[in-house]
Every structure is written in C-alpha cells, then in structure tokens.
C-alpha cells in the first residue's frame, strides 16, 4: 500500500512539473536597445513551399540577430497553406503575424473579409520605413496586383511567367531547334516522345485546379480568356481550340499519370530526365538547373512560351506576396520582418539564387543577374513584353472556378481532345458565370 501512495505522489509531482515547464519561457530582461525596439518579441510566420521560401530560410537567423525578434517559422504546401490561413483567419485567431499568400488566389477574398492589414500605414510612416526602402521600386504591375480598392493588402515577393523548359541534349540529338510556335512544339513533342525508354515528349500540369494557371498561357495564345465583363468566356471557339490542343499533346506525348500532376510531380518527371519539355512557372529555373536537385541540370534550356495562332501570350503575374493579418498582435515586429524580407538587399540575394523577384533595382543590378542561369534574364524580358498579368480568373471564389475549368482540362487530357468538349465546357462556364454573379 505504501508504494502505491509514493507512486501516486511521484506521478502528481511529474505532472505538475511538466505543466510548469511548458508554461514558462525565457523571461530575460533585455535592456531597451533603441536599434532593436522589438527585441524579445516573437512572431509566427507562415511560408509556402517555394524556391523563395527555401532561399530565405537560412537567412532568417541573420534577421533574428539584427533585430532580436524571434521568428517561429512554419512551412506548408500551397494548398495546405491556403486551408490553414482560411481556417485560422476565419475563426479570428490572433496568432499569425506574417503569411505568404497568392494575391491572385486570395487577395480579393481576404480584402472582402477584412483580414489583411493595410500596409500603406507602415510604408508611409517614416519612423517605421526609411524612404530608401522605396515602395515605388516594385514593378508597377506587381503593386497593382496587391492593391484592392486602394488598400495595399500585401507586399509582392515573386512574379512568375510561363516558361518552356527543354532538354538541350535531346533536341540536339534529334536535330531540332527549340520551338517558337505551338505547332512546332507539338511536332517536337511527337518526335521526342519515347515511351519505350520512359521519356515523354512533354509534361505539364494536369491536376484539375492546379493545371489552370499553366494552361492560361495556352488559352491566351489561342486568343481565349477566362472572364470578360463579369461573365465567364472560356466557352469561346478559341478557348475550345486551346483545351483540345492541351489535351491532345498531353494524352499523346505526355507521361502516364499526368492528370494527377501538379508542379511537385511534374518537376520530378522533368528533373529525372523523363520528359523532353516542360511548360510551367519561371520560378523553377533554379531547381531544374541545380545539380543537387536535378539529374539533367546542365542539359536544361529555356525559351519564351511559343506563339499560338494569336501570338505568344504567356502570363506574367505576381505569384506570392507577404502580408500581415489584421488580427495580429505584433504588427510592428511583423512589419520589421516584411520590410527586411522585401528590402532591396534581400531581393538582390534572391535574384542571384534564381528566384524571380519583383523589384526593378534587383533586375537592374548586373551582379545579381550575372549569377542567374545564362540567358534567363533575356527570356524574362521577352516574356514580360507580351505577357498577360494574370494566370487565373480574378474573382473571390477562385478555388471553385479553377476546379470548374480544371474539370474541362482533365476531360480534354483523358480524351486527347478528340471528344466533343462543348457540352462540358458550357456546363462549367455557366458554373463560373453563376459564381461571378453571386459576388456582386
């Protein structure tokens, strides 16, 4: 009996100790350093899995040392990040301080629900932001993308455009030049398609909603678009041609399983040498030319998106931005982080690492672009000149609209564009038009 009482006492003491241990943190009294006004604060930052975030992670320790702010970093895949942000912000949680998000996907939704802090208050305050930080250094189109009804909901980080990545060695062996029109691209895919040896002619996203952003370049180059005057217009004859083309090349010359592929799977297929071409966002240039991440690193070439019947019209859009929730309790410390991450120095560093940032000064810096994969800066400029500034329908219910368009893409791929897609397109087009109507 006595042992039992001792055991019980021991358990209670252990339990109490764990409670105390979990509760208290370091409560060091730091002298107020005027250069580090927010020292000792902790901010919670949510990143997405993206080359920019990968490049920033090792540099955060510098930020912590400089400012004395502790950064609790969490990283998620883009879909999970969206889910998490929405759940936490919808329930009024105050624990997020900085988050990465996609302005084209979420800016309208967040602005509608008033979840973002208007960053203008920080940018225009000379005490919080030195004039040298220069908000006007950001590309004008990127500033437009993150400003909703005059409210600056976030600071733009990276812009991306459709790029055609191709295997220089396979093209040389077949005596081909990189394609300049979509017709040439289809012909090249046919020649290079080698299923017996496990090499597909071309790979691209086919996974329902995820494919829409990369499909947009094909859509625009055939002369189609997503929305016009508040109505969905992807039931136009031009759009039909785009769907048929996309479905045809992926069914006939794509790898098996393409309808389950988003960029995470497509990049693996391309980097392990199992595809001769890949159309996707420019951000991935760093990864496919990195010897530690890609088996074909030194064989990768890149050109502007080929021209369709209506010209070459890739998208060039702000892919990610950094924002502060309205409910955050550490807005000043959070702003320090956003200011640092989007400063001229940081952007130059990221550009040198192959991340396509949004500041003009970074692109004008010869040193930074020198470290860029050769020829990529020219591709960037050429693409920028003809590009469309959005890669998806701009609305609040973007997720649902993407799934509707994605349904057509999947069917096009499954049938190789041979089946009559018109009834399905009309159905999905109506769904998106109805969604747009509900937003009024």
């Amino acid at each position, binding site marked *: 009996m006595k042992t039992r009482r001792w055991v019980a006492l021991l358990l209670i003491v252990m339990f109490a100790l764990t409670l105390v241990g979990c509760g208290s943190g370091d409560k060091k009294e730091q002298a107020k350093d005027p250069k580090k006004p927010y020292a000792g604060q902790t901010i919670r930052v949510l990143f997405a899995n993206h080359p920019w975030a990968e490049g920033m992670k090792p540099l955060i320790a510098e930020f912590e040392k400089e400012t004395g702010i502790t950064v609790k970093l969490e990283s998620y895949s883009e879909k999970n990040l969206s889910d998490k942000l929405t*759940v936490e912000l919808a329930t009024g949680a105050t624990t997020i301080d900085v988050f990465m998000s996609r302005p084209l996907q979420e800016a309208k*939704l967040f602005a509608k629900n008033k979840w973002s802090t208007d960053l203008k208050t920080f940018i225009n305050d000379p005490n919080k932001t030195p004039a040298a930080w220069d908000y006007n250094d950001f590309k004008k189109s990127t500033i437009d993308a993150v400003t909703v009804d005059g409210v600056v909901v976030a600071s733009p980080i990276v812009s991306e455009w459709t790029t055609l990545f191709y295997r220089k060695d396979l093209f040389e062996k077949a005596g081909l030049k990189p394609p300049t029109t979509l017709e040439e691209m289809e012909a090249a895919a046919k020649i290079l398609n080698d299923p017996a040896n496990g090499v597909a002619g071309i790979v691209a996203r086919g*996974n329902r909603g995820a494919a829409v952003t990369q499909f947009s370049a094909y859509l625009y180059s055939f002369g189609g678009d997503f929305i016009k005057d508040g109505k969905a217009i992807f039931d136009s004859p031009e759009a039909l041609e785009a769907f048929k083309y996309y479905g045809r090349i992926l069914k006939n010359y794509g*790898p098996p399983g393409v309808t*389950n592929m988003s960029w995470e799977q497509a990049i693996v297929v391309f980097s392990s040498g199992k595809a001769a071409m890949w159309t996707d966002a420019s951000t991935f240039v760093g990864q496919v030319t990195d010897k530690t991440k890609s088996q074909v690193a030194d064989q990768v070439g890149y050109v502007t998106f080929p021209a369709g019947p209506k010209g070459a019209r890739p998208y060039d859009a702000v892919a990610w931005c950094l924002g502060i929730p309205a409910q955050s309790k550490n807005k000043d410390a959070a702003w320090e982080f956003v200011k640092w991450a989007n400063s001229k120095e940081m952007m130059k560093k990221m550009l040198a690492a192959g991340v396509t940032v949004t500041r003009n000064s970074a692109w004008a810096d010869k040193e930074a672009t020198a470290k860029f994969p050769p020829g990529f800066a020219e591709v960037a400029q050429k693409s920028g000149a003809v590009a469309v500034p959005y890669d998806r329908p701009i609305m609040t219910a973007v997720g649902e609209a993407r799934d509707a368009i994605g349904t057509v893409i999947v*069917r096009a791929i499954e049938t190789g564009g041979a089946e009559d897609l018109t009834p399905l397109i009309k159905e999905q087009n109506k769904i998106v038009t109805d969604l747009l109507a509900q937003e009024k």
Partner: protein
Amino acid sequence: MKEYIENNVRWLFPLPAALFIVAMMVFPVLYTFWVSLTDWSLASGGEAHFVGLKNFEVLFGEPRFYNALKLTVYFTVLAVAVETVLGVGIALLLNREFRGKDTLKTILLLPMVATPVAIGLAWTLFYEPTVGLANYTMKLLGLPASKWLADQATVIPSLALVDIWEWTPMIALIVMAGLASLPSEPFEAARVDGATPLQIFRHVTLPLLAPTILVAVVLRSIDAFKTFDIIYTMTGGGPGFGSETMNIYAYTLGFQYFRFGAASSALVALLALVLGSSLVVLYFRRRWEV
C-alpha cells in the same frame, strides 16, 4: 459532502469523460447541424443567415454529390468485403499452433499501427506509373502496367488496395479474439461425427463466428465510409473527381471553396449514410440471431 460523493460515486466518476464527450463530440455535431441550415460562406463576406433546408435542396440537385455518394459506397463495399474475407482467413490461419506464430502475428499487425499520411505518401510513390514499384512488379510478373491512381477507372480499386493493406489486420484481430472465445464442444462433436474440415468450417465455425464477424464488419464499414487520410494524401479527390468521396467533397466545399453551409450539409448527409447503414446491418443481425 462526503456522504453525497459516496452515494453518487457512480455518476461522479464518469463525469469528466462525459463532459469531454459532450464538448468534443456532441457539440460539434450539433453545431454542424446548425451551420448546415445557414448560408455561411466566406466568399460572400462571412455572414451566416438562416436558410432552412436550402443547402440540402442544392446538394441533392448537384451531380457531384451523387458522384461522391456512388464512389463512397463503391470504395467501402469493395474494401470491406475483401478485408473481411482476408481477415477471417488470416485469423483462422493464426488460430493454429506453429513455430514463429507470434512473430508472424506482430508483423501482420504492423500496417495498422503505421501513420496513415506516411502510408499515403509511400503508396503514392509505389503507384507512380513510370518509376513506381507497383508497375515494376507488374512487369516482372508479366502483367500489363496499370495507371493506378492516374486513371478514373482504376483509382478507387487502387485506393481500396491501400485500405485493405492497412486494415485487414484489424478484422483479423477481432476475429481472432472471437475464435479464441468459441466453445470447443461443437468442434469435437463435429469431428467425432466425421465432418470434413470444410464442412466444419461451413457449419460450425462460420455460424458461431457470425456475430464477431458482423461486429468487425460494422466497425470497419463505419471507418471506411469516412476514409479521408489516404484519399486526401494520395489523390486529393482526383483525377478529375474520380476519387472524390463524400468526406473529400465536404472538405473541398469547406476548405477550398469556403462554403461552410454547403460543406456542413454534405457532412450531415454522410452522417445519415453511415448511421443508416449501421442501423440496417444491426437490424438484420437481430433477424438472424442464432
């Protein structure tokens, strides 16, 4: 005070557990019922207004709902049927004495204790059509390569295979416990009467095991209807909507389209499906009670 506690001990001891259940289970279910009667959606600004049964009207007119329903039933019936047959078989095998029985038992139970998300990710790699182990094995066996998760025709069977791999041990476990508790007289009597092993199985083992098997089937079906982890990690409902079961559909409605009212109504429908099926099975059990 002390007297009160002593007299009512039988109410006080379960009280913490009861409070926990009310907070964690009853409240969320009731809240879901409530939300399913509103039009709460983030895309429309976040205000919730009571709309009665409108969400259900919309839901029952939506072809995607019927697709989800069909896929849920297909997946559950396929997975649970195969699991039951295999599980009972394994349990019977493990009921004999042989060397290495305990080790075999432990190994067979491992899939059940693995983390579902890890299982999903690993099997996704196996199922990858170009570089995965599954097609490699098919090639070795001289069978044609399959598209596994990438084709709408094969995605549900592929997912069911993963579920079978993960949960057959659970059925085996329950049936093993049932076998161990069976009386030995009927078996001895049958053997004395000269019954063959097959006859013993058909006329003695199976009827005696029937209640246990039924319990295992009901338990497993309830979970199989609600399967989320492996489907979400492996296909996210794709390709197209080829593996979008009710649970995934509700998740998409709620967390990707932010239509919480619609999502809640889909979940209430799922609850009705699961509850209804369980009640039907249990009703038939009473009818066949030996």
